[in-house]
């Protein structure tokens, strides 16, 4: 009875549901489908970033995220004011670092808020879990923004495609997998949100949207230094609109309120401070702001003056005066030092070769290298081909919004070519523009198919817009193959999109989900070998060294040592003091006795080097060594790069230069390595990372002693001996 009753109820429910479904109007159905697609995309964006958690464990990745994690922990434990005023004496010894004033707090505050609200809702989560999942969560939110953005610049179809594309685009996933707790994780969301709100403000001319956009900008400023891109792209966009004669009241309201409010809000971030009025990078925005006022004035005068000739003269005088005043103000400001000149980082963005010649510390970072073609292909896949097609569609239907996305796409593509890591900034633009291409193409094709059917069935349908009329015109010159070719093209498009999906999935699981603090390799029998040496070494430091021990290492490992080893470091990944880093570089590239003097002057107790000769791990300190020489030599000219090279060649075997074979870094890396058999059939002391037999197998240390070497020799820690007792 009961079962039957339940069944009857079920069928009732089903029938009523199906009846409702049928009853739904087309528009409602469309909304339902759209919402469910968005939900699926939202979930997809989140779960496809969880590979790293499943493969390894819920852990923080790489280098910078460890600093972010440490600061977030501090924030949640000690509260916002302590965080804001935090002077960290454990890094950059002995200079220290004012952490509260030299970071973008957006990420930490976001994670802490998430943490606190989860705690408030009685979810007993650990702050690490929150940090690990922050980036995927914001990636999901980005898909929503992408949908609305796409809807704003094209239509909701393009929005849906954009959301789907950006959800799995490798260029974005590379910086937002679970565990990659870095500024970029939330910043891309903030960037896209700001752009969307601004475009919306320009389209509507609404003060409310402009205000929202200013707040989006504020969030972006608080989260990432990449906000400079926004504050330069938007003025550029406005300038282009002005030059193309698209000046309007909407634009005036949107830009002015966004700029003024955004600037005032951004000044509240300690790290940014007065840069908006004092630094060369932000002057374009201010110039355009004044230009807007000149335009407004001109518009008003034009409205008052009926005489066009008089107006032309007035125009000439005003524009000359305005430009003249602007140039003089800029000149005086720069000369008096009130406006700081462009920074090296900014120059290196405009000129890819600048950093290599002038700022080795920027050029030494692998993610600051110019992008190779292969990584474009790797990160964008078919989007690379869809991007020009999308640009074509945008140009075909030029509006304020499409001009914006075109400019965003083109500028960010240029920057992506300059620096590998800026592919990330280009990704949303590429996804949006490609989505326009995909959506417009598929729409045209399906429309072709459907109208034909409709023509054969009902004869005619009421026209909605001009596009229909044009397709009708197209229909008139239709050929017999058109339907078939449309079907073929549709299948082609779906094939490409499915290939894109497989590619993204593969890239995410194979390339972008490695935490890089735990290394994985394939063993001789195809099994997975895990090298957990980093954590082993940091744990050793934490357990076996005095609380106030100072550890010297190359700056890459600074954040990890302070976060995991809880020990004071000399330099870390916040490369704010080039001289200090150069001092460490000099110590590493000097002979042991000279290095000892430097280490004594910095009160160094332990030296940590990363060595891949046993495991074949290639991003170790020996391979980074030339950068230490270059950076050290940039400040201390006694260090000269040619001393470490032989005929311009960098080598560690018998043919290496004598200075190379006896410098501190070489000695620390290869100490006792000459006795070790690394590979069958090779002599002892065979370096697997470089594939050579080392040149100095008999390394003797006088001023340091080996303290700890991890099980795979990846991290080696040495203790600095006290000075000789009797000398």
């Amino acid at each position: 009875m009961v079962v039957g009753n339940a069944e009857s109820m079920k069928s009732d429910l089903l029938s009523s549901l199906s009846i409702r479904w049928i009853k739904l109007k087309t528009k409602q159905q469309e909304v339902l489908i759209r919402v469910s697609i968005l939900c699926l995309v939202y979930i997809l964006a989140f779960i496809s970033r969880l590979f790293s958690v499943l493969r390894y464990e819920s852990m923080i990745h790489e280098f910078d995220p460890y600093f972010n994690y440490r600061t977030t922990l501090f924030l949640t434990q000690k509260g916002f004011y302590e965080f804001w005023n935090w002077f960290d004496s454990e890094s950059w010894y002995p200079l220290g670092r004012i952490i509260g004033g030299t970071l973008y707090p957006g990420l930490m505050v976001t994670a802490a808020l998430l943490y606190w609200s989860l705690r408030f809702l009685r979810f007993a989560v650990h702050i690490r879990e929150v940090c690990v999942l922050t980036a995927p969560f914001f990636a999901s939110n980005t898909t929503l923004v992408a949908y609305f953005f796409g809807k704003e610049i094209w239509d909701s179809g393009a929005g849906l495609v954009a959301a789907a594309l950006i959800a799995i685009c490798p260029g974005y996933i590379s910086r937002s997998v679970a565990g990659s707790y870095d500024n970029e994780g939330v910043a891309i969301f903030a960037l896209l949100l700001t752009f969307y709100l601004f475009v919306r403000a320009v389209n509507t001319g609404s003060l409310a949207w402009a205000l929202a956009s200013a707040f989006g900008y504020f969030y972006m400023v608080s989260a990432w230094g990449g906000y400079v891109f926004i504050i330069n792209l938007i003025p550029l966009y406005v300038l282009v609109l002005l030059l193309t004669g698209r000046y309007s009241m909407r634009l005036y309201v949107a830009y002015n309120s966004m700029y003024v409010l955004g600037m005032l809000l951004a000044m509240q971030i300690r790290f940014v401070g007065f840069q908006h009025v004092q630094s060369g990078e932000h002057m374009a925005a201010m110039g355009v702001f004044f230009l807007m006022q000149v335009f407004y004035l001109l518009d008003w005068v034009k409205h008052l003056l009926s005489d066009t000739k008089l107006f032309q003269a007035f125009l000439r005088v005003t524009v000359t005066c305005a430009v003249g005043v602007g140039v003089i103000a800029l000149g005086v400001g720069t000369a008096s030092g009130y406006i700081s000149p462009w920074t090296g980082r900014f120059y290196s963005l405009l000129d890819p070769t600048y950093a290599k010649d002038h700022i080795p510390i920027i050029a030494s970072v692998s993610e600051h290298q110019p992008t190779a073609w292969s990584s474009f292909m790797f990160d964008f896949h078919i989007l690379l081909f869809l991007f020009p097609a999308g640009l074509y569609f945008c140009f075909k239907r030029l509006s304020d919004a499409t001009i914006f996305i075109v400019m965003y796409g083109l500028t960010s593509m240029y920057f992506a070519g300059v620096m590998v890591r800026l592919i990330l900034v280009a990704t949303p633009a590429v996804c949006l523009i490609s989505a326009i291409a995909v959506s417009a193409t598929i729409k045209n094709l399906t429309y072709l198919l459907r109208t034909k059917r409709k023509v054969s069935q009902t004869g005619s349908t009421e026209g909605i817009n001009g596009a229909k009329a044009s397709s009708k015109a197209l229909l008139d010159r239709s050929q017999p193959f058109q339907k078939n070719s449309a079907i073929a093209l549709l299948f082609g498009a779906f094939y490409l999109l499915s290939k894109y999906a497989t590619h993204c999935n593969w890239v995410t699981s194979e390339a972008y989900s490695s935490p890089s603090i735990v290394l994985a390799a394939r063993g001789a029998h195809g099994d997975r070998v895990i090298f957990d040496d980093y954590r082993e070494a940091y744990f050793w430091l934490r357990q076996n060294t005095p609380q106030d021990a100072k550890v010297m290492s190359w700056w890459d490992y600074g954040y990890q040592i302070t976060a995991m080893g809880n020990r004071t470091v000399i330099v870390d990944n916040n490369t704010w003091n080039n001289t200090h880093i150069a001092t460490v570089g000099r110590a590493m590239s000097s002979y042991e006795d000279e290095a000892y003097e430097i280490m004594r002057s910095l009160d160094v107790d332990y030296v940590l080097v990363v060595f891949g000769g046993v495991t074949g791990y290639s991003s170790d300190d020996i391979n980074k060594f030339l950068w230490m020489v270059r950076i050290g030599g940039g400040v201390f000219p006694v260090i000269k790069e040619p001393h470490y090279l032989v005929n311009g060649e960098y080598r560690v075997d018998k043919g290496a230069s004598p200075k190379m074979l006896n410098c501190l870094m070489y000695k620390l890396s290869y100490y006792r390595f000459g006795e070790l058999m690394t590979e069958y059939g090779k002599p002892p002391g065979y370096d697997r990372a470089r594939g050579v037999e080392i040149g100095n197998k008999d390394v003797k240390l006088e001023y340091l002693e080996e303290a700890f070497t991890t099980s795979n020799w990846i991290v080696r820690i040495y203790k600095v001996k006290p000075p000789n007792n009797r000398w």
Partner: protein
Amino acid sequence: MAKVSIFKAVITLLLPLVCLSFSPEEPTDRRILVLVDDFSLKSSHSIFFNSLRSRGFLLDIKLAEDPALSLQRYGQYLYDALVLFSPSTDRFGGSLDLAAVLDFVDSGHDLIIAVDASASDLIKNIATECGVDFDEDPSTVVVDHGSYAVSESDGDHTLIVSNDFIRSDVMLGETEIQAPVLFEGIAHSLNAENSLVLKVLSASPSAYSADPSSKLSSPPTLIGSAISLVSVVQARNNARIMVTGSLAMFSNRLFRSGVQKAGSPNKYPKSGNEQFVTELSKWVFHERGHLKAVNVTHHKVGETDEPLSYRINDDLDFSVEIYEWSGKSWEPYVANDVQVQFYMMSPYVLKSLSTDQKGLYHASFKVPDVYGVFQFKVEYHKLGYTSISLSKQIPVRPFRHNEYERFITTAFPYYGASFTTMAGFFIFSFVYLYQK
């Protein structure tokens, strides 16, 4: 109960032993191991040994070849000082060797090395490790035709006199040594790379190191005042080492003999050896010249607790107590040249400490306008005294956000401007909205 009483008994038996040893609280040595080549030295150098015994030292005189020789047992040193009166030994007995002697010194114990013309390579090597290089030619001795001791048998001028002492009351005592010191033995020089070794007694400019029995065929390698007769080293851990090329200097014969320097009318009934050797041994065995610094404190002016960090421009008080060991008790050390540094890679503040004559040194100064991890450093290295190097780390932070002045007088025009703008905007809106 029985167990407890046995334990107590063991403790009471052990306690004097523990107390006797050298400790930071009682820095004077107690137990001294003397190694000799043969026991005849016991009688020939008895004055020296007896003076040590009378000062309370426990002497353990052993043959250098003694197979039971050992400086430590179960990781504990059995002696506080080592006297090597065994110049010709080329191998110690037992577990003692070059490295063991150096380890002994490096763990803070004192050493006296005295050799003569028969010095073995082993002993020379120990001296070399302490920064003292004996003349490599084994046949040489110090010869001085200028300032030799006048004696009946006017021999080869190898018994020389010297009164070229180091000027340090801490090392040689406050009473001036009137009579010159007799010296008979080999020359050594100081290693220029060693910054810790000091000449206590140097030879006269006319001295040289050569074989007196043969004619000089080439110029001697060591000449004049480059020759050191007695040298000392105070190691970084305050272990003290004395090296001399004359074992005879400690002998009863030279202690008692009268002395007259050639060409000088002054004739002393007794040589300066006894006074010199005794006073220097007091220094070597830490009866004198041992400082300790305790109770390093610092706090903000007007407070008493030591803070975890300072803020820039804070005013602070720094104080340290320095005491000197008199051989029996800690006496206040009085000097006006003790300085404190407030140091971060270089001293930002360098200030002399004022003393209250009771051992308390004090200074107050302003923290510089620089943030970072600073150190209070007291680096006191004075000739003859054990060196004091203290450092205490303290971070200096910048102002917090709410530690700046809330309102600045010079900015009042701007405050005024902001508020008038607000008021003006309000009035303007009101007029604009409601005017007819």
